[in-house]
């Protein structure tokens, strides 16, 4: 996206204020980008669906875990009865082959797992990454070396393989969604940490930070009052890009059968059991695959938009373009 999208964006903010960085300005700049806006709309819709999952399932009159033996043709290997995977007034998006469980109910409940784990894992990654990055940037040489090398190791770890190993050894009693958040979170903070450290090092030598230090401010205060606000932009940008990757990781782990446990519905798990059905019941494959695709795309578009909006140079371009267009108008 970027330039071409920006060029295509109609009704770009006409009066971009020069100062006042923050959420309001970010939103104003995001609004100028059609793809990012579409991403935001899709995400809001998905979050609403996830939150209202019990309500939506109740509206349809279905339970995500209830079996419907009559909705599938047992003699045909359990193919849903009816066209498009058994779409009917009772089952809006059809039923799962073999079990006859309602797909609409399972998909809306599955949104809770996908989004919930994706977002929660991102929070863990960002909190850990910022903490480690700041400590490395502000600490003495020994601490910096120790934390930086640890970060290098975390970045070099083959995350998927490690996650599989971790998920396999944890006792079965541990709540699975929490475990997934922890595994993804604990393995994925390396990138944030490295960015935060680099940013901290460059900010540390700036005059206003030196002034604060001369004024007697401690490390903690400097980190909190002087550095964190300036770190917000890169961190927000990076985490917006982490969310889709976490959603995809959850789907991948569930696809491999080590994600959430049955009967909890998850998109990745549905996609996994759907793979054998792609010829006999294509609808069953397309639904979870389509949802994962749309969700990841929406978060990626938003992440890209946030990056463009927070990039000082891109911001200038954005304003220039907006003015140029305005100027060109008769």
């Amino acid at each position, binding site marked *: 996206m970027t330039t071409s999208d920006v060029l295509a964006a109609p009704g770009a903010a006409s009066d971009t204020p020069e100062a006042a960085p923050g959420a309001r300005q970010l939103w104003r700049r995001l609004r100028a980008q059609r793809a990012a806006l579409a991403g935001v709309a899709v995400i809001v819709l998905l979050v609403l669906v996830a939150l209202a999952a019990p309500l939506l399932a109740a509206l349809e009159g279905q339970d995500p*875990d*209830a*079996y419907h*033996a009559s909705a*599938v*043709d*047992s*003699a*045909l*290997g*359990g*193919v849903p009865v009816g066209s498009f995977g058994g779409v009917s007034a009772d089952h809006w998006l059809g039923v799962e*082959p*073999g*079990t*006859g469980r309602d797909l609409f109910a399972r998909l809306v409940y599955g949104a809770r797992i996908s989004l919930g784990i994706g977002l929660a894992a991102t929070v863990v990654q960002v909190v850990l990454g910022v903490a480690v990055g700041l400590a490395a940037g502000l600490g003495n040489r020994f601490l910096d070396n120790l934390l930086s090398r640890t970060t290098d190791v975390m970045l070099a770890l083959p995350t998927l393989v490690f996650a599989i190993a971790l998920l*396999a050894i944890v006792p*079965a009693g541990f709540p699975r969604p929490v475990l997934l958040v922890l595994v993804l979170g604990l393995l994925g903070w390396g990138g944030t940490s490295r960015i935060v450290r680099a940013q901290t090092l460059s900010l540390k030598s700036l005059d206003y930070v030196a002034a604060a230090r001369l004024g007697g401010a401690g490390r903690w205060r400097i980190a909190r009052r002087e550095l964190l606000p300036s770190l917000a932009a890169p961190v927000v940008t990076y985490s917006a890009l982490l969310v889709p990757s976490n959603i995809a990781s959850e789907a991948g782990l569930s696809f491999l*059968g080590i994600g959430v*446990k*049955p*009967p909890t519905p998850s998109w990745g798990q549905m996609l*996994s*059991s759907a793979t*054998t*059905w792609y*010829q*006999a*019941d294509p609808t069953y494959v397309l639904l979870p695959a389509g949802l994962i695709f749309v969700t990841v795309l929406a978060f990626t578009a938003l992440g890209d938009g946030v990056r463009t909006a927070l990039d000082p140079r891109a911001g200038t371009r954005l304003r220039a373009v907006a003015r140029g267009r305005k100027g060109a108008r008769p």
Partner: protein
Amino acid sequence: MSHLSVTPRRLAAAAVVLAITGGAAACGPEDSGAKAAGGKPAKGGTLYVLNQSPQEDFDPARLYTSGGGNVPGLVFRTLTTRNRENGADGSKVVPDLATDTGTPNKDATVWTYHLKDGLKYEDGSAITTADIKYGIERSFAAELSGGAPYLRDWLTGGKEYQGPYKDKGGLASIETPDAKTIVFHLNKPEGDFPLLATQTSFAPVPKAKDTGTKYENHPVSSGPYKVVANENDGEHLVLERNTHWDAKTDEERKAYPDRIDVRSGLDAAVINQRLSSGSGKDAAAVTTDTNLTAAELAKITGDKELAGRVGTGHFGYTDYISFNPKVKPFDDPKVRQAISYAVDRSTVVNALGGSSLAEPATTFLPAQESFGYTPYDAFPAGKSGDAAKAKELLKEAGYPKGLTVTLTHDSSGGDEQGPEVATALQDALKKAGITVKLEGLESSAYSEKIHGVKTEPGFFLAGWGADWPSGGPFLAPIFDGRQIVQDGYNFNNAQLDDPAVNKEIDEINKLTDLKAAAVRWGALDKKIGEQALTVPLVHPVYKRLYGKDVKNVVISDWTGVLDVAQVSVK
């Protein structure tokens, strides 16, 4: 399931096979009129076998086979073998190298066999009973582990014998008074001995040709084919005609193709895809280890030509819920009965691929006469469970508000003891007020846990198949109190040690009339079934594709799968 339903199913299976033969003849491009009139199988050509698992063991001592095995049965002849016929006839035992299925003494502890005339190895030398004795002795050697445990348990002195490499004296309980006679002395009566004599450990091995663990690279053939190539530890096998095999001495194996090419290491989906498209050599291909999955079957059923190339078989197997009455609350028969009433067999059947891949089971024994199948339904759950009756029993047991239990299962998807069946049961029991928590374990951890007396959970999924079609190997390991293994793999999961049951097992083992024994096994199954120690769920059905040019498909109830020795590709 009523008794009546069995016969029509068999007939249906036979009808399918007939239709297949007719169909194949009608659509084969090179079919002449003569072939179409009955699709007569003819000699010649190469049969291709597409498999997932390589034939890593090709040593008769190391093979654990039922009825002599499929591909191994082409190379190894045994004293007796399975009857190579369709359906129930195929679960009979018939002579192979021997002239009959064995002559027992009065109490079935001594069995005598005589060899046919004119039996030869691939090099033309004569097969003697001393070679059969030597072959059996090899199966006791620790170096050649992997075979079935029965001979060790049954032969007098079998427990102590270390195999011919360590113990040059040999096994005294096998006598070979002359080159054509062999006598077995057992430590207890075993009317099933002729069925055991089908296993490849009864194949002759010439002592002079024995190369120990390397013997499997080139086992000396006594059957219609010999091994000409064995690449990558059984990944690719090429078998060609054994010219010294005489069809007059072998009424069982048809051996139509001149050459058999076994390729393994393939993915299940790839095998079924290749068999269904059947291009080139794949038209003359079969598989001996890959079943059709529900999704594949759903697609194939819509295609008449493909549907005509599906072989259906019934191997004696039962998938069931197992209880450990030593764990609360399963010590209370009422709780076990409540669960028996609450199960919904229709959703379990669907979880395992629908009604064409699984049949609901209410008996522990498979629904086959040879096992002694006696229909009963001790706790009639109907088609989809009797939640009301279950609730009533729970109330009597002191759980008016229902209860919460943990169901242990294998966590690998697609497994018969896997999460699909577990979640189906979870949903069914919910209706009866039983909250089921699922404990899914990785395959080996699951297997270890349920087969250890000390680690065994109270409520779990299990499955059992027999080594030969008889009630003995089906019931004894599961319900004989003397077979409870304290350290190691225990299959008596209910840990039942009932003197009456143990005594009846001993009594039936003395019978050499297999039909009379079968009736008694059936009655015993019914009696044990009333204790609700297990909840039989389903008997699986096998469906496998075969290539366009493949004729004379024979599927016995012994193996439930296509017999590779009978097919023709011409």
